[in-house]
């Protein structure tokens, strides 16, 4: 190994730091340390001549480890690392620390102590520099093809966007026809146009942008080159990794050949079997061979295998002019390779039959909003007439019931967000065409939060829709008059009402689509407490998951209206493009690595990894070891904190580096308060420490900071070692408990700290010597406060005294 030559660069930030830190003292201290060959002082080192000094030191004086004390370390780090790499130094050999915000500013009232702490910080970096190892860049292939799961509004939009950009797209729909729940809705708010309207492909709108949306049947979607639509299909297996997935699809038999069918309807005419049409709310019958509506894609009939008699009948086979009916079709398994996956599986209506007091399923005239939508559709079962399903007579009185199964602790806590608007839209549609129909809406709160949404409410009122604030307690049925009675307390008028009505419309909750759980398991992505797919970050990454290469859009993450679904579809498509566009994935090998010699196959780490980056690999007949995927690993170190054999380490932050920093930073004291080691994460926790300095918050110099990639990296041993090496207390400063940048890290360390406290008690050490603090950037003052409070607490507890014998 080449000899260590450590170059240290101290920025006095335009001399402002010299008023606090004794630079001469620090420099002579550094020069005494063996292996430190260059010590430079300047006003700034991340640009201009300062940066040139670093480059020169690397090139001419052959410095092979660089430590720079700069303000705004993250910003300057990027520039310094870039320059150092260009000069031939590995990125990991550069450390940038923040003497200004972590030392000078918060300790400006005690310059002598601050100088000693600065020395301790620099010594810690020097000790770490000695054992750093190079980090290399990795490259992985990325196929320019995308799987879109779900052929509703979001899936279609995303698929189109991607296909237009030249990506190969596979659009998978579980049902025999595209459209999803949106297509059944008939019309959308706030545009009041057809649900079956989609954006036209680029090829169709080269110049005339105002015709850029079309009915699905005339959109030419099937003709877009590069877009392959698989209906009646499901994903059954996903293998491989981001950029290169191998997907196994199962296509259920349609029994009608898609290339031969000409939609002449002869088959349906001769078919002797009639069953209730569930697509049309069971308000009409359909044949065993059918198409849902004429304007849908694909224009190919399908046989319902539950009701068809197949070879016993064969009438459709005989009549088909193109020999398209193939009764012996079998499920087909096929595989495709894609680089990314977009999940657009949407949501569904909650089944309100569990809510006994509303008697859905029992009283035929209690229906859901989606069922009403079918009635309102000109293609629907009643041709747009509003009837009582029980006797087919026109409905003259209608009562909507809002929040059915939502905002109700018994069923679903959340607000489904779109049901108010759906009911308003339906009420307006009814009132416009049939002004004589009496329409009432029983609501808890009307939520019209989008642009132009409130206008719907106003319009409904103008049209004479009655609003009753109250959740109905019971729906009963008078068999003699065939009338429903809705019991509701109008809480504004404080009156109990018994509303007689012909039809009750339940505005049911929207819940995750079937198979969401199964698909989540196949894709190894998370679902939230309500069962929807969980996005990586609701604020900034709403269409990404924690798995690189898997994206979300539309109602799959939560019930959404069409504009939001559409927006998300475009976003997901863009994210997929961003991910795959260059045809390769380049990343630093800042990853965990398992030492196979020591891995004991306990199988704890794969469970703790938030990225599913650890798999178990058989190395011989008897032995299985954990292996980390360099592509999937995000370098948080949660596995390091988990391994009971300490057989895992982070390439960019080895445990030995943490240990040497711990020892060094506690080895120089220079003050008389109890030493505290504050482990902070590199994200929110670290940012709050930075901002404590930026906001000039004071805290004492006994608080020493060591940054770790994520608090989930930390093990109980790290706390005990800090105590053993002179820390009287340990602070762990991380993100908010639901805001960890690595999902689980902060929760992991919280549990480990809890275990550590249990242990400390056994060791005769006060458990409050190790504490967790959750902070964010804007809470720098909170960090300073916590540091002061911890110091005060430790002073009260008195010093820890270890036996000399030990």
């Amino acid at each position, binding site marked *: 190994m080449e000899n260590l030559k450590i170059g240290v660069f101290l920025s006095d930030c335009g001399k402002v730091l010299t008023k606090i830190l004794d630079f001469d003292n620090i420099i002579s201290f550094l020069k005494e340390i063996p292996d430190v060959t260059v010590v430079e002082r300047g006003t700034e080192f991340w640009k201009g001549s300062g940066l040139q000094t670093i480059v020169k030191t690397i090139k001419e004086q052959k410095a092979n480890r660089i430590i720079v004390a700069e303000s705004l370390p993250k910003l300057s780090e990027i520039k310094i690392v870039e320059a150092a790499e260009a000069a031939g130094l590995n990125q990991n050999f550069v450390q940038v620390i923040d003497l200004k915000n972590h030392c000078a500013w918060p300790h400006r009232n005690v310059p002598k102590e601050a100088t000693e702490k600065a020395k301790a910080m620099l010594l810690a970096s020097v000790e770490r520099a000695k054992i750093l190892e190079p980090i290399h860049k990795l490259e992985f292939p990325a196929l320019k093809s995308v799987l879109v799961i779900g052929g509703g509004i979001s899936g279609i939009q995303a698929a189109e966007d991607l296909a237009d950009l030249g990506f190969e797209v596979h659009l998978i729909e579980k049902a025999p026809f595209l459209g999803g729940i949106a297509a059944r809705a008939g019309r959308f708010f706030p545009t009041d146009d057809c649900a079956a309207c989609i954006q036209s492909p680029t090829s169709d709108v080269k110049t005339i942008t105002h015709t850029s949306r079309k009915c699905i049947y005339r959109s030419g979607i099937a003709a877009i080159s590069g877009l392959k639509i698989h209906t009646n299909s499901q994903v059954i297996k996903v293998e491989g990794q981001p950029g290169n997935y191998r997907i196994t699809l199962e296509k259920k038999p349609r029994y009608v050949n898609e290339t031969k069918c000409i939609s002449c309807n002869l088959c349906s005419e001769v078919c002797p079997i009639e069953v209730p049409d569930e697509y049309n709310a069971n308000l009409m019958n359909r044949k065993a061979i059918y198409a849902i509506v004429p304007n849908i894609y694909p224009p190919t009939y399908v046989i319902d295998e539950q009701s068809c008699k197949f070879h016993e009948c064969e009438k459709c086979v005989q009549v088909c002019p193109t020999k398209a009916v193939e009764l012996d079709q079998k499920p087909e398994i096929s595989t495709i390779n894609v680089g990314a996956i977009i999940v657009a599986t949407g949501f569904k209506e909650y089944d309100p039959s569990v809510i006994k007091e509303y008697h859905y399923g029992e009283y035929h005239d209690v229906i859901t909003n989606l069922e009403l939508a079918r009635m309102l559709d000109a293609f629907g079962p009643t041709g747009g007439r509003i009837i009582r399903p029980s006797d087919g007579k026109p409905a003259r009185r209608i009562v909507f019931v809002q929040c059915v199964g939502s905002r109700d602790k018994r069923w679903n806590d959340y607000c489904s967000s779109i049901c108010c608007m759906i009911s308003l839209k339906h009420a307006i549609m009814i009132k416009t065409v049939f002004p004589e129909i009496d329409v009432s809406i029983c609501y808890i709160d009307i939520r019209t939060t989008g642009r132009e949404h409130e206008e719907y409410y106003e319009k409904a009122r103008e049209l004479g829709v009655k609003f009753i604030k109250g959740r109905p307690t019971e729906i009963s049925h008078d068999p003699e008059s065939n009338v429903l009675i809705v019991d509701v307390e109008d809480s504004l008028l404080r009156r109990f009402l018994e509303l007689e009505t012909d039809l009750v419309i339940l505005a049911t909750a929207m819940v995750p689509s079937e198979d969401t759980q199964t698909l989540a398991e196949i894709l190894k992505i998370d679902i939230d407490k309500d069962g929807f797919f969980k996005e990586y970050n609701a604020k900034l990454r709403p269409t990404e998951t924690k798995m690189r290469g898997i994206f979300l859009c539309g109602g799959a993450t939560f019930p959404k209206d069409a504009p939001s679904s559409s927006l998300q579809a475009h976003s997901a498509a863009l994210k997929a493009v961003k991910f795959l566009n260059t045809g390769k994935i380049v990343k630093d090998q800042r990853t965990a690595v398992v030492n196979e*010699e020591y891995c004991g196959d306990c199988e704890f780490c794969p469970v703790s990894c938030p990225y599913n980056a650890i798999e178990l690999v058989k190395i011989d007949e008897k032995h299985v070891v954990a292996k980390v995927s360099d592509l999937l690993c995000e370098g948080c170190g949660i596995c390091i904190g*988990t391994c009971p054999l300490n057989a895992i380490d982070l390439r960019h932050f080895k445990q030995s580096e943490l240990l040497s920093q711990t020892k060094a930073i506690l080895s120089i004291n220079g003050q008389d308060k109890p030493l505290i080691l504050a482990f902070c994460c590199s994200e929110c926790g670290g940012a709050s420490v930075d901002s404590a300095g930026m906001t000039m918050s004071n805290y004492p110099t006994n608080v020493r900071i060591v940054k770790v990639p994520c608090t989930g990296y930390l093990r109980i041993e790290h706390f005990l070692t800090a105590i053993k090496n002179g820390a009287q207390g340990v602070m762990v400063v991380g993100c908010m408990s639901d805001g960890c940048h690595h999902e689980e890290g902060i929760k992991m360390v919280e549990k*480990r700290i*809890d275990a550590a406290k249990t242990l400390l008690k056994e060791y005769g*050490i006060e458990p409050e010597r190790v504490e967790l603090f959750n902070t964010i950037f804007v809470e720098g003052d909170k960090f300073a406060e916590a540091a002061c409070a911890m110091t005060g607490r430790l002073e009260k507890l008195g010093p820890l005294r270890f036996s000399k014998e030990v």
Partner: protein
Amino acid sequence: MQKPKLALYWSASCGGCEIAVLDVNEKILDVAAAVDIVFWPVALDTKYKNIQAMPDKSIDFCFFNGAIRNSENEKMAKLLRQKSKILIAFGSCACDGCVVGLANLWNKESIFKRVYIETPSTINPASIFPQNKVKVNDKELELPVFYDTVKPLSHVVDVDYFISGCPPPVACIANAFEIILNNKLPPKGSSFLPNKSVCDECPREKKDRKISNIKRIYEIEDDKITCFWDQGVVCMGPATRAGCGAQCLKVNVPCTGCGGPGPQSSDQGAAMLNAVASVAADPKVLSQAADPVGTFYKYSLANSILRRKIKE
């Protein structure tokens, strides 16, 4: 060629390690034929002065079992270190302090008080404690000093190799003899036990690792197939060095950790707690564990990071 000289010694231990040496069965005959046993208090009558008289480094291999509980243990450790070319910490007491080391939850004073005054079978109205020096017939006799803290061998002398276990697994002992006799010594500081954990040798099936409760073995109906952790029972296997062939697990008893910490681990109990805390459904799960030190540090308290309960 001269036969290698072998010494075996016991300090603060139960004697089980001595039996384990004999458990290698007929292999002991090969060993006996291949070496000269120059010191073995359990079998040969040798005095301190005989050892002191030996030239330095004249013993080729010394197997030292037992922890350092008192000054005599330490004195013998130092003497044997001086006389031996290779010193091997043999058994859990010498390697990690073992059950003897659990005394580190107390100190000399509290142990003496308990043993010589408080135990129900003791009648000691004059509160007489063992003394370091005692006069008998005008002659002053010296007794070893009882320490506050139990230490593993490596805390008082430089140790070349380790064979942990309570007692060490017979196969590993036989293997160690074989390595030694064939002069294929591994790098200094190595263990003669495998580098893996007990899980590696355990036939039980690991499941989802979602631990929501910690139970004691009598509280479950063991299905005899599933990993104990997946049944909510503490098993030290994941944090314990292999070599035993998971023999306890094979008779449906969870591992208690006698193999000591893994090769990379500095603290067996903390290492196990990390893993369980990480997958535990609830932060409070671990507080259900009865007697945390006795459970997670049964064999390694004296060799843990903090080594003992700190004194007031």
